[in-house]
């Protein structure tokens, strides 16, 4: 489906978007990378990022996210393929001429310089005059609300403050593209959340394009315009957060993003966009065919815990339902989390809202569960 380019109007502020807005601001074309000449760490990467877009590379550790980022920044060379920035191939441009801002996981603030000197560094190497430099530094510090800290050394700052300075330093020379490699990985949850918010705000306000790397799916979902899910050197799915969550394209993405119940079976029948799957226990369920096309194909069906209906009366008549035994009931405040045994799977989780019309299920109780066919996706086995 068509992906909407991000709203370009909001880049107006103190915009840096000098380049004309384009859908292919950053392009990876058939990029491969191998470190040792034996295994491909990045396999055939095709990706194009629009101006002003916030794109996140999400994936488990070792899936090649950092490698992609480093190729874009110029610290690693692509073994094959082409990377273009604003229409120009950059394979042979050294990192310092690419004008890409970068934020590192360990902040990489120069310990022997004060905060202000750290921020002055990119401006000095660009031979920007003293007064202009000071203005820019003041503005950058103000943007991350660290104006009073110009004379401190990085070691005198907390982790969150250091990360803000690292952000300010990556932005102070007004790059159009900023890369961030797990910038919040070392921070505690609360700080991480507030900084996530700040980063997205800044990015949108300045209209910069951001390529953000993380292994934290919540972070990816809350911050990004689009998320590229990496696994084993390949993009498994490139989509907006809601699409990714609601309509995972394969079982890896379904497993990786959010909580997910899976059942194994075989396609029994396909009609009207609904695939009837016979589970290994013999029971039949209705699913939406995503990666299956033939009757008799093995499939892994995936259903989100909050999409499971425990009150079959609400389902349309004729829908297949399943027998379930309640194993455990956990009260979590805003929701109830119940563990069931369904078709031999002891780890079938359902989540229900803590609402007046919802009943607390008792362990040992036998219930009927069902779902809308479009919520249950038949994926690759």
């Amino acid at each position, binding site marked *: 489906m068509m992906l909407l380019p991000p709203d370009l109007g909001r880049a107006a502020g103190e915009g840096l978007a000098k380049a004309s807005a384009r859908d292919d601001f950053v392009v990876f074309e058939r990029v491969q990378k191998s470190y040792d000449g034996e295994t491909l760490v990045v396999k055939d990467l095709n990706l194009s990022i629009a101006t002003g877009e916030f794109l996140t590379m999400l994936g488990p550790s070792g899936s090649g996210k950092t490698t992609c980022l480093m190729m874009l920044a110029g610290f690693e060379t692509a073994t094959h393929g082409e990377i273009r920035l604003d229409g120009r191939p950059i394979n042979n441009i050294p990192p*310092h001429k690419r004008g890409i801002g*970068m934020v590192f996981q360990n902040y990489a603030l*120069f310990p022997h310089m004060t905060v202000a000197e750290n921020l002055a*560094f990119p401006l000095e*190497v660009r031979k920007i005059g003293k007064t202009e430099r000071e203005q820019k530094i003041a503005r950058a510090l103000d943007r991350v609300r660290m104006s009073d800290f110009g004379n401190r050394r990085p070691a005198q700052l*907390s982790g969150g403050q250091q990360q803000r300075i690292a952000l300010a330093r990556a932005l102070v020379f007004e790059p159009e593209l900023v890369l961030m490699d797990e910038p919040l990985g070392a921070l505690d949850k609360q700080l991480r959340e507030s900084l996530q918010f700040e980063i997205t705000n800044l990015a949108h306000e300045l209209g910069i394009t951001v390529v953000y790397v993380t292994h934290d799916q919540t972070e990816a979902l809350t911050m990004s315009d689009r998320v590229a899910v990496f696994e084993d050197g390949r993009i498994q799915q490139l989509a907006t957060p809601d699409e990714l969550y609601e309509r995972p394209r394969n079982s890896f993405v379904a497993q990786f993003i959010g909580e997910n119940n899976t059942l194994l079976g075989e396609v029994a029948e396909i009609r009207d966009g609904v695939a009837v799957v016979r589970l290994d226990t013999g029971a039949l369920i209705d699913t939406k065919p995503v990666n299956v096309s033939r009757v008799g194909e093995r499939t892994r069906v995936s259903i989100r815990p909050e999409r499971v209906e425990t009150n079959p009366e609400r389902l349309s008549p004729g829908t297949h339902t399943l027998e379930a035994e309640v194993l455990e009931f956990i009260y979590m405040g805003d929701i109830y989390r119940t563990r069931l045994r369904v078709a031999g799977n002891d780890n079938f989780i359902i989540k229900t809202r803590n609402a007046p019309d919802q009943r607390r299920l008792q362990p040992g109780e036998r219930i009927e569960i069902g779902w809308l066919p479009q919520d249950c996706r038949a994926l690759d086995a």
Partner: protein
Amino acid sequence: MTDVTDATTARRGPTPDDALRVADSRREPMLAADGTPLKRSLARALRREKLRALMLIAPLLLFILVTFIAPIADMLFRSVENQIVSDTLPRTTRALADWDGQDLPPEDAFAAMAYDLTEAAELKVHTRLGSRLNYEAPGISSLFRKSGRGTGDAGEALGEQFVTLDPAWENPMVWAELMAPPDWLEARAAHYADGGEPEGLPAFKLRDEADTILPETASVYGGFARITQFEDGDDPAEEDPWSPIYLALHRDLAADPPLGDWSGPHADLLAAAAEAAPAMETVPLVQQFEEIDEDWLDPDVWATIKTFSPPYTPGYFLNAVDMQQTPDGVELRPETQRIYVTLFLRTLVMSLAITGTCLLLGYPVAWLLANLPSGRANLLMILVLLPFWTSLLVRTSAWKVLLQQQGVINDTLVWIGLIADDKRLTLINNQTGTIIAMTHILLPFMILPLYSVMKTIPPSYLRAAKSLGATDWTAFWRVYFPQSVPGIGAGSILVFILAIGYYITPELVGGTSGVFISNRIAYHISSSLNWGLAAALGSILLFAVLILYWAYDRMVGIDNVKLGG
């Protein structure tokens, strides 16, 4: 933007910083649970732990004190210590105290010298004193060696005349009765009655009266009795007294002592001797000394003794900076004898040069070590450490083979045609040789601290710098290099301090122009045995290093020295 920011702030929980600020704003003293101020109970709780920790390290501390601090203290002490002169020549030192240094000293000084040297010769320490004074006035040691034998005869002629006057003067027992108090004589008799040996005799004592009425005689006899009893293990009352004792007796009697007050035995013997003394035939002491060695008529010899008689002397230190202490004050040594200042400067300059070359060669190697993949880095590390596993002598000798005029390097250069066969380079037995060989030997001491510091500099700093627009060189110079400065400091200090005290390598490949001050120190310790001078040179070296260390601290800051992460 603003309301968004505010929302973020509101959502942010208190950071640890905030908590600190809150605690900081409360200023009244905190109390512990039992009401005592928190500070005091904390101190009390910590004290016991500290004490225990101290006890645990006490053996080690003691070991360090004994093996490390004590030798240094001893060296510092030796560099000014000079008790040998006043210990060996106590009477002479006293007699020379009022001498003005012009002409010859008074006869008293000659007499005192005769007594002191006799004693010293009996104890066989006069040659040691001679060697000591020889450092200050070359030639004086032979004078002392010769005189040790001669001065024992001073007063011989007088002794014969006393014996002619009354044979009792020849009797050791008579002398003992004159000089010792009755209780010592009784104790002696009792000792023998019990069947005792001469060795076990009670310690000889002087009679107070003898000391006041015949002071010189008492002093010399006291020395005689002490040496006879404790050095030779004999009975002073049975040994013939030394000739100089008669000289002392004659001089005492000539001073017209109040013999009427003599209450001890042999008063008549003394009275008779006093009467005969003026008529006795005497040879002036000056003349007797001249016969032993005419150098005694040189006032400079006496001046040297007087100058170096105080128990502590700056002489060694002055010597160590090419100055000397003369009777007329401190002055530079004659041009031909000045060597130490040159040597110190050379040691300093060459150590700096070696530190510099080590840094130049070591920095890239350390960088490679820290940045190569670990397999190759390990191999390189082994190469760096290899010299440590080879004997220093072997390595230095290898340099001899490489660097000599017919050596590998010269041969190669001639073979390539870079230099003519008759213009082979002199690479050894000079400063070049020393610098080359010592750079090789000290290189690991530069590389290791540098490496351990560079290892802690994450590569992301360089990447960050480049992503910010810095060229490779700017990134290195502005970001990497400043962070490696602690390693440079540590390596340089290590190499410099090792170089400044190095000894074997300069000795082997330095020739005459490439030797260090330490080679001189070694020479004075093992060959010339002038330990005082060696200690003074060592102390100057120590202070020079301390001053440089202090200067480094002022300029760079000692906090900026890191041997590792």
